[in-house]
């Protein structure tokens, strides 16, 4: 017996909120991307927990897709940041208005 | 209400001469200023003659709506082009004719953008005329808005002190008003179940339940009341007066504010008599506050036009008080006061405009001693001020008197307050006269020339109208009574 599924959900939720908080408040493009990563990760946690809760492998499958998408997103995102940085010389999102 | 169709479309001819004037002016080249002015004078003169003719040709023994023209326009929506004149409308038409004609003559000296100015004035006035003669709710609303829009340009382009601010404020206020009026009109039309915008048809008693009347009336009252300078919604009007050029101030204070009061009467009171009775006390309260408040604020103003602006607030309060009494005398007094105040402020603004054009100041602190250098101009100003005080044998005295008597009967306390405001109004009008006209003549105004005969014509017309209706008030009151007595006696 591990823990009730709700605890996993709470953990995932807290991590998600942290990621969101990071993405929304930090004035730095890289940190925003980092926040997105954290959020994706919390999603993965929730799915893994759900897979165990209902004893179905779909959850794990989705988690693997999340991983893949996270990788794709990060690479594109970072490439964009590099581009933007080259243009403006800043990673402050306020500088791109 | 008896309805008499016209043999000849007099009312449409009034409108037509406005529109024709507008079109002709648009086709005259910009630089032929004299031609433009003459066309304006002739067309406005025609409207004056026609409205004066209608005023005297109206059959008072028969009463009701006369000179009616009615054509279906959009039958599926029940909209018709429906003009008619009754005892309430005719004084207003006459007033508009007088103010329009004199306003055009007053602006004879205008040199900048003459063509656009007169074209816009014509547009504005055709809206005003339409509003006063239309008996179709849809057209009433259309004319109402037509008369509001040119004001923005007229003030913003040809105005003075803080003109952009004033123009914007005025436009926003007035649009807020029409934003209340439109839903009320639509509400009434939908709830009536008659599927028509015809005012006369909708007036049929029992069309609306008391609740519908109360609801629609308060919307209409505030919506039109904003334009009539009802107390807490009045601040646009002094600002607007100050900023507007002379003729626009004349039309604005003389006629546009009347559109508001007339709208309350024509749409609000006609369609929702029970709502009117229900809200009458509120109307009276606001009106009295306006009367007293206007004079006190006017007392501490130093800009001539602000002074007149606040006196307008006070005088329009008298109109409101008259409407709020729900009596024949009150209605008579209110409509008469609309007329008298219109002519009076027109005179006031036209003389102030003359003084401002010459001295380039409107501040009563800087002015002084004008009676020596310009006796005639200041004479007009004094006559206007005396009319404003309510000196007997000048038109507005009778209007105020009848309103006071009827309000004293219905709301004794308000009547007393309104009468007491007379003292303060005397104080502030005489203060203005003293500061501008009296006192030792000032060096810098010594060379200024007095009103010439040509420029004096519009002012003379206004003064003589004031004196004639002051000496023979019955001419006007008989006219108004043809509408007010049947209306009040027909109330539930």
């Amino acid at each position, binding site marked *: 017996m591990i823990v009730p599924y709700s605890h996993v959900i709470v953990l995932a939720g807290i991590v998600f909120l942290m990621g*969101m908080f990071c*993405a*929304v*408040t930090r*004035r730095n493009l890289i940190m*925003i991307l980092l926040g997105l990563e954290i959020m994706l990760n919390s999603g993965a946690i929730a799915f893994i927990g759900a897979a165990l809760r209902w004893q179905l492998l779909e959850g794990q499958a989705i988690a693997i897709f999340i991983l893949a998408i996270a990788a794709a997103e990060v690479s594109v995102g970072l490439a964009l940041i590099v581009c933007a940085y080259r243009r403006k010389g800043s990673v402050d*999102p*306020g500088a*791109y*208005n | 209400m008896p309805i008499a169709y016209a043999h000849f479309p007099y009312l449409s001819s009034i409108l037509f001469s406005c529109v024709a004037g507008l079109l002709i002016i648009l086709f005259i080249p910009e630089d032929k200023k004299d031609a433009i002015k003459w066309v304006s004078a002739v067309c406005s003169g025609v409207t004056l003659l026609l409205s004066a003719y209608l005023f005297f040709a109206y059959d008072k023994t028969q009463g009701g709506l006369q000179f009616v023209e009615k054509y279906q326009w959009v039958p599926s929506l029940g909209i018709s082009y429906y003009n008619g004149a009754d005892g309430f409308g005719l004084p207003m038409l006459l007033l508009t004719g007088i103010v329009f004609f004199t306003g055009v003559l007053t602006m004879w000296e205008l040199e900048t953008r003459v063509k656009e100015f007169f074209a816009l004035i014509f547009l504005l006035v055709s809206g005003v005329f339409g509003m006063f003669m239309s008996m179709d709710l849809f057209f009433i609303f259309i004319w109402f808005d037509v008369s509001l829009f040119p004001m923005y340009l007229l003030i913003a382009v040809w105005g003075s002190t803080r003109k952009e601010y004033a123009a914007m404020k005025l436009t*926003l206020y007035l649009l807020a008003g029409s934003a209340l009026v439109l839903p009320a009109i639509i509400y009434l039309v939908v709830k009536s179940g008659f599927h028509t915008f015809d005012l006369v048809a909708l007036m049929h008693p029992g069309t609306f339940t008391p609740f519908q009347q109360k609801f629609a009336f308060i919307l209409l009252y505030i919506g039109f009341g904003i334009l009539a300078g009802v107390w*807490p919604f009045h*601040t646009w009007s002094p600002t607007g007066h100050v900023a507007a050029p002379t003729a626009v101030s004349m039309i604005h204070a003389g006629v546009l504010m009347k559109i508001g009061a007339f709208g309350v009467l024509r749409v609000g009171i006609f369609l929702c008599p029970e709502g009117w009775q229900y809200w009458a006390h509120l109307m009276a309260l606001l009106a009295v506050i306006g009367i007293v*408040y206007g004079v*006190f*604020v006017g*007392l*501490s*103003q130093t800009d001539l036009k602000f002074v007149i602006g606040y006196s307008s607030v006070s005088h329009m309060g008298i109109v409101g008080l008259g409407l709020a009494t729900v*009596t*024949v*005398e009150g209605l*008579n*007094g209110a409509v008469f006061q609309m007329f008298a105040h219109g002519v009076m402020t027109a005179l006031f603004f036209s003389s102030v405009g003359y003084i401002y054009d010459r001295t380039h100041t409107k501040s009563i602190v800087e002015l002084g*001693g004008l*009676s*020596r250098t310009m006796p005639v101009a200041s004479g007009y100003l004094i006559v206007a001020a*005396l009319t404003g005080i309510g*000196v*007997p*044998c000048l038109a507005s*005295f009778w209007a105020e*008197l*009848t309103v*006071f*008597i*009827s309000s*004293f*009967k219905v709301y004794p306390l308000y009547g*007393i307050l309104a*009468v007491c405001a*007379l*003292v*303060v109004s*005397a*104080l502030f009008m*005489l*203060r203005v006269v*003293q500061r501008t*006209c*009296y*006192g*030792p003549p000032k060096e810098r105004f010594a060379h200024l020339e007095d009103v010439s005969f040509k420029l004096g014509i519009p002012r003379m017309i206004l003064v003589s109208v004031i004196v004639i209706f002051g000496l023979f*008030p*019955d001419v006007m*009151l*008989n006219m108004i*009574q043809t509408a*007010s*007595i049947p209306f009040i006696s027909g109330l539930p």
Partner: protein
Amino acid sequence: MTSTPISNWTVLMTAVTAVLPFVAFLLIMVFTRKNERLSAGLSIGAVSVSLAGALFLIIQYRHLTTSVQYAGKWLVSGFITIPVGFLLDPLSLLMLTIVTVICFLVQIYSLGYMAGDRGFSRYYAFMSLFAWAMISLTLSASLFQLYVFWELVGLSSYLLIGFWYEKFSASEAGKKAFVMTRLGDVAFMLGLLLVLMNLGNLDILKLNSPMVTAVMSPGLITLSALLIFGGVVGKSAQFPLLTWLPDAMEGPTPVSALLHSATMVAAGVFLFARLFPFFSHSATAMTVCLAVGTISMLLSSTMAMVSRDIKQVWAYSTISQLGYMIMGLAAGGYVAGVFHLTTHAGFKALLFLCSGVFIHQYETNDMFDIGRKGGRHLKTPMICMVIAAAALSGLPPFSGFFSKEMIMAQLAGLGNPIWLTAGLAGVFLTAYYAFRLIFIIVFPKEINDEAAQENSAVHGHEETEHHHDREMAWPLVILAAITVVLGFGKKMLQGFLSGRLAGVEEMAGHHSDWLLYVSVSLAVLGLVVTWMEFGRRKAGQIGFVERIPALKSLFLERWYIDRMYRRLLDVVIYRGVSNICTQNDNRVIDGSIDAVCDGTVKSGRMISDLHLSMIQYKLLVMFVAVFFLALYFFF
């Protein structure tokens, strides 16, 4: 009281009498402003026709016992009917005669006095306006009409006081006069409305008929009588609205003679007399009127004791004499009050016109200056002035003696001796201040050479303008003659007046001899005291009041009534209410409107920010939106 039917001829005559001056006014204002002689001619012509009409009417109706009334409609509005018409009865005929006579004389006099003034035409126009308003007021058959012309009289007073508008004090005084009388008029109007509401009619005859008590409760009658009396207080410059009249002396002297002593201010008393039966329904109102009359009589007499300005002295004396009239009327002496009004109009006009000659000649208002510059050398005005002053102080055999005597008798008839005492004190004070002025001018103390030279220069000047003097002298002589003769017409007048109100006159019967002696001796005492202080050779020309500084400043400052008004106006009206309202307008109403506008603009900005700026806001909004959508779908 019924009305006798009247002939068309009378109607026409009355209409012409009333309206002609107005026609003159319009003609002068519109056409002949440039032509001075024509303007004066028009005005004088109109007023002389009016005079002729008035004389015709009074002769035609000399045996009048019932009123003659004619009414047409001026205005009908629902239940309000404002008639235009006239009411001819002894009172209105008498007043009409007074008004037209004095108007006529003053206009003749003004030919000399106003000669060469820039506003000559304007002056005559305003004079005509006044004549019209005053005559119509006198003839009014209903209180509405009376109110209308009452206001118009006030207007012409305003215009004439501020006639020399370039002087700040003149325009200020005009404004003050208008506003203060307006204050009274508002009370008057409220009284009218009250009566109208309860009686449904403002006909003077109806108001005076006994049926009023049946319709209105005693409290209502008292209230409305007091309110109407407010109008009297304003127009006749009684306490507490008395301070405008001395200031009104800023106008040309003939104006002061006509409006502010003889006729217009007497309109208040006239109204009181007009509604005498109505007032006498309420004992409370009568007592209040009596008190007001007494207070103003005493106050203004004391003010007159220290003033140096010749016209102001007469202005104060006007207030006090009007006070006498009101006392007389309020004590129940209808004939006494009206008789005093009549005699007063004569001698007071005379006093002012005489002073006008001095002022015109020496160009100063200061009585000491006039005396020093040789005022006594102008024989005709000096003699006339002495006659008038004697009449004013109630010395026999001049007209004032008879009328004052009647008032005293009336006061003696009252239960409370305080009124009589006050009245007698007034007699003494009147004699004192009137002769103080006379003695100061006749027996100047310090004639220096310079003044004497000036004096001769003035005489030379006089020769060149001799024709003006004649125009100014004739009215004086006529008025002086009237002053001398009028007193003996007491019986006749009494008969004429009481034809209308036979019942009211019983009270006048208490005429006792001791009262006569007491009041005459008091007047003589006043004369003697003045002689001791001002007249005799070694007199210091300092009055006993002036030896007490506190009293002197109190009197000079007009009992501080003026200052109180000024402060009231400044503090309460201007700085108080007006300022608050203005601030409210700018801060609260405009402020809130601007706040609404700014709020709209700001919120628009905020929303547009979500679309334009920070990527993170978009992110945030996205989260919020998704979150709420999720909530919506799950629950």
